[in-house]
């Protein structure tokens, strides 16, 4: 692989610059010494040199194949034997064996690597060229300006060309010619990377006595315009990032609130253990992950597919048990039911703590969920958040389908509207309660499965969600699927939009106060249930 790389490197270098100054033994002499400043200067000359021998030597330096032979001459080792770095003549076995390897420090190594990248700017493979340009953009260095300039003149691929333009412009900002600076400012601004503002800043200031600043007014104006456009870009990027994080928080809240909305609408009691169903779902995901890792490591990437039904089932069974064993006997005593469910949540937390330990457990993302889409430098959409957004929409669709397209859903809606009347026309309300409660708990379990992918999984996981998800239900209007969606997403957005101004804590308080005030205005929530199901 390396031989082939060297071949195109040599070929490329040879054909585009025949008239380069030849490498001399004097130029590279310091490499054999111990003076790192001199060494750096030598490497600096190497990377700016277009001589194919220079490229070979750079590669050898990077690979640790370069050594200092007799009388300080530099030897390059390769598969076919060692050669002199300047002349290319073979070197005797004995001298090669006695040669001292040339040591590089980190700084030099970086320079060498960048030099190689600069040389690769003329590789025939566009993928390689683009990678080389990106490597240099990440760490711009004015010493490569000649190489960049040449590559830029030859480049046909528009995408790589724009990178090369930026690369050239960054160094050209300090060019003595104002026309060149003007062009460079335009190119830097066109790069649409807000952090490049700092490069433009000196050019926006008028020349001061100290010699800093920009003498040409046209360049100053262009630089100011460039900074303004990058500022705008930053602002939009930040706004979009805030909106996305609000949407993401909202989707998590939605998963938590959806089940609560169903059970609250049905039995008229906040299930304080609802957060613990989330926690159960997350732990079910953890257990599935561990099991897959142990018994079928090859399938590890697909364990979430298994953990989704598992978390639903675990939480639904727990919900069924809670309803059958406890809540059923407390119907008509909502306040005591509230306390009871709180007791259940304590029991569940402590049970999990004693089974899995008080520490958080590790749930890792599969490969296809890591990483993200970078729309702008300050706007990255992580895959796991996007997937959870899609997942929560899918869960909403599922809940909608169950509530509106099944017989059970019809009964649930009937009982929610008027329990006595539903019972009178033959709905077995007890059974409906059980199934609907299990369904709501199962949805919370799905939420826990999703939460495990983005946050810590610990026994206290669910505690933070009960108030927020209840607020989402209240905001939207009880017994309304659409209301819950709007409520959860609105709550998530509102918190994230307030956060940059007031900080997380005050944002939370502000949201709570806003909701209490909102209830003053509309006690039924945004989407009131139509009909005569007014309070008893």
């Amino acid at each position, binding site marked *: 692989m390396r031989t082939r790389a060297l071949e195109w490197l040599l070929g490329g270098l040879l054909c585009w610059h025949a008239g380069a100054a030849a490498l001399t033994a004097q130029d590279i002499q310091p490499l054999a010494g111990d003076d790192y400043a001199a060494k750096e200067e030598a490497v600096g000359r190497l990377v700016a040199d277009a001589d194919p021998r220079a490229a070979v030597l750079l590669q050898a330096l990077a690979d640790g194949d370069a050594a200092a032979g007799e009388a300080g001459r530099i030897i390059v080792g390769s598969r076919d034997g060692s050669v002199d770095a300047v002349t290319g003549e073979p070197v005797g076995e004995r001298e090669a064996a006695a040669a001292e390897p040339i040591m590089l420090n980190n700084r030099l190594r970086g320079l060498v690597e960048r030099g190689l990248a600069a040389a690769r700017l003329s590789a025939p493979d566009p993928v390689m060229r683009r990678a080389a340009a990106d490597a240099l953009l990440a760490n711009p260095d004015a010493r490569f300006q000649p190489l960049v300039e040449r590559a830029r003149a030859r480049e046909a691929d528009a995408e790589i060309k724009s990178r090369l333009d930026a690369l050239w412009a960054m160094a050209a900002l300090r060019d003595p010619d104002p026309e060149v600076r003007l062009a460079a400012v335009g190119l830097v601004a066109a790069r649409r990377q807000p952090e490049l503002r700092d490069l433009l800043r000196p050019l926006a200031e008028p020349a001061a006595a100290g010699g800093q600043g920009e003498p040409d007014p046209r360049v100053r104006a262009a630089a100011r315009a460039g900074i303004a456009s990058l500022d705008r870009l930053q602002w939009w990027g930040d706004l979009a990032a805030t909106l996305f994080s609000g949407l993401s928080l909202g989707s998590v809240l939605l998963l938590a609130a959806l089940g609560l909305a169903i059970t609250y609408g049905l039995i*008229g*009691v*906040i299930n304080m253990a609802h957060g613990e169903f989330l926690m159960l779902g997350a732990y079910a995901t953890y257990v599935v992950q561990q099991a897959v890792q142990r018994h079928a490591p090859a399938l590890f990437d697909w364990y979430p597919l298994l953990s989704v039904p598992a978390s639903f089932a675990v939480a639904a069974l727990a919900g069924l048990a809670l309803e059958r064993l*406890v809540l059923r*006997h*407390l119907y008509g*005593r*909502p*306040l*005591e*039911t*509230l*306390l*009871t469910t*709180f*007791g*259940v*949540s*304590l*029991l569940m*937390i*402590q*049970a999990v703590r*004693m089974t899995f330990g008080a520490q958080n457990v590790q749930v890792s993302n599969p490969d296809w969920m890591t990483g993200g889409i970078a729309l702008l430098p300050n706007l990255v959409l992580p895959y796991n958040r996007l997937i959870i957004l899609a997942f929560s929409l899918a869960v909403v669709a599922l809940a909608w389908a169950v509530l509106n397209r099944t017989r059970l859903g019809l009964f649930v809606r009937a009982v929610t509207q008027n329990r006595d009347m539903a019972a009178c026309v033959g709905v077995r309300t007890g059974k409906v309660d059980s199934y609907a409660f299990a369904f709501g708990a199962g949805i919370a379990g799905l939420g826990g499965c999703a939460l495990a992918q983005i946050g810590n999984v610990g026994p206290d996981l669910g505690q933070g969600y009960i*108030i927020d998800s*209840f*607020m989402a239900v*209240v905001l939207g209007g009880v017994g309304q699927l659409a209301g819950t969606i709007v409520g959860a997403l609105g709550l998530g957005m509102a918190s994230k939009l307030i956060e940059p101004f007031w900080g997380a*804590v*005050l944002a*939370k*308080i502000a949201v*709570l*106060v806003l*909701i*209490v*005030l909102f*209830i*003053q205005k509309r*006690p039924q929530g945004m989407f009131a249930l139509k009909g005569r199901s007014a*309070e*008893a």
Partner: protein
Amino acid sequence: MAAVIAPAGEPSAPRFSLGLPERPALLGRRAWIALAVLVVAVGAGAPLCALVLPESHPLHLSAYGMTLAGKLMCYAIAALALDLVWGYCGILSLGHGLFFALGGYAMGMYLMRGIGRDGNYQSDLPDFMVFLNWKELPWFWHGTEHFAYALLLVVLVPAAVAWVFGYFAFRSRVKGVYLSIITQAMTFAAMLLFYRNETGFGGNNGFTDFKRILGFGITQPETRTALFLATFAALVLAFLLARAVTTSKLGRVATGIRDAESRLMFLGYSPLGYKLFVWTLSAVLCGVAGALYVPQVGIINPSEMAPVNSIEMAIWVAVGGRGTLIGPIVGAFAVNGAKSVFTTHFAEYWLFFLGAIFVLVPLCLPRGIAGLFQRGRAM
């Protein structure tokens, strides 16, 4: 129609009666006697056991025991306060911990000022302010060096917070489970606020390291005994006050609101004022309990406002039996006594025990401990 118009010529007979039962006495004869015996026993026994008897004596009341008993009595006052709103007005508050903590913070401000220059930084300002590099007292700290003003704050701050919250909540007829969760959100929000250093109440650490109260060293046995007796007096007075309110006409309207609010409204009552009065009174009682709690325990911090604390108060009431006044007092002693035993001997199982109480009491003992003694009497 139960109204009976008595025939003329019998001036001694009642002229007009709606057939309502007489207003019950504040306490029955036997209850008064029992209360008097209790007051004498505690009033004389506590100083005797704590101060007179030598430490080797088996009846000696240690500092730990006295603090524990004082703490339990503070909890009992809080439980009593919660019973007023839950048992007699049907409002389950899951935010009474806030009022308790507000009263505690008001007293804590006085105690912090009482430290004077004896703090770690030898400054006139409380230590945490020096630590935050504040140069002068914030406006809401002015005057807190006066004990009388602090007492005023203990009453007024919880009252004001409760009144404003209650006015908005009751006016829009928020009730039931809905109200419970909102009260919980209220105390949760307040906790977040008090955790911030910028709020001006010591952030995370709250107030601690108190030195003296009214010039007396706060750890002196005599001071402790005095605080203990003050708490006991407050408990007895709070009980009598609550009893007076619940047996009054106002209390019976409140009970009517609990049982059938809509019907009462159709009869022409506006529940807002009644609810607001009972709610605010309850908050004040809770604040007083907090104010007595802080000097005895020696610390107040935002964790007192954690939602869990408020929910635990509700279980004291449920265990004792709500709507009985005496029950919640018993419940507070029983649950917190059990908590002390559990956390010292088998801490791991305390949450299981507490959870089990929460689940089993409403299921098996809906009228609490008090219910065991009032067989056959309807709630």
